[in-house]
């Protein structure tokens, strides 16, 4: 009985030690919080920004050609 209790105590210490280790590893800055969804947002925003800039540049080139006429 004593041995088992001792074992349980050791085990619980082990678990808490692990929990602490986990806490130490986590270094959550903004981009890594809540499932790293911010990274996805950043990627989509970059993609759309690229597309928007592309469309604007097409528009500008077209304006130039229209003025030549």
């Amino acid at each position, binding site marked *: 009985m004593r041995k088992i209790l001792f074992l349980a105590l050791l085990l619980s210490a082990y678990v808490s030690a692990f929990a602490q280790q986990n806490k130490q590893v986590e270094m959550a800055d903004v981009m890594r919080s809540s499932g790293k*969804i911010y990274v996805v947002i950043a990627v989509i*925003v970059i993609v*759309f920004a690229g597309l928007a800039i592309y*469309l604007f540049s*097409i*528009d500008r080139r*077209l*304006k130039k050609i*229209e003025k030549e006429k």
Partner: protein
Amino acid sequence: MKFIYQTWWKVLAVLLIFYTLIAGFLLDVPHLPILHETIRNVYFHVPMWMAMFTVFTISVIYSIKYLNTGKEEYDLIAVECVNTGTFFYVLGLITGMMWAKYTWGEFWSNDPKQNSAAIAFLLYCAYAVLRNSIDEEQKRAKISAIYNIFAFPIMVVLIMVLPRMTDSLHPGNGGNPAFGKLDMDNHMRMVFYPACIGWCFTALWIATVRYRIRLIEYKKNEIN
């Protein structure tokens, strides 16, 4: 027509979409079974169809205007609006299939909404085929304008009316509530409406760019 050369509404469209890209992922959404996080697709899948409807409507207006006045420019606007609308149509279909795979179980489950959307898509493919098969310019413009005026109401009936009269998996049909009071709360509306406006204007923008290119081509051919 000065409107299409202005920049402010293009900037507005881009800003609105940026807002929906960020808010659409971060704002809280209702927790619903089956849908889970895919409810956020409302911000991206539905605006594709709204954008399509916008440019198709403009196309019909200019088809009617063409028949009234016989101005070639109006015909060019109608064509390019249909072309842009077809592009957004494809995007809407594909995003819908993707969403259906993870909520209905299949990419294509022969749902009335999906089937009639596919049929209506063929209607607009036929428009392109019809146009390309006629060489004479005025005849082509006139016939395709008339076809367009007939195709639009049929498309609306196929997509919006017929699926609602039978059972469909798609929200808004056959006793299956749309994203109305039950699913969509006011938080979602704050993102959904700007998304629709933003994508409608983006579709309009692409259509105007295509029209301006076509106008230059048209004038070039006229001189030669």
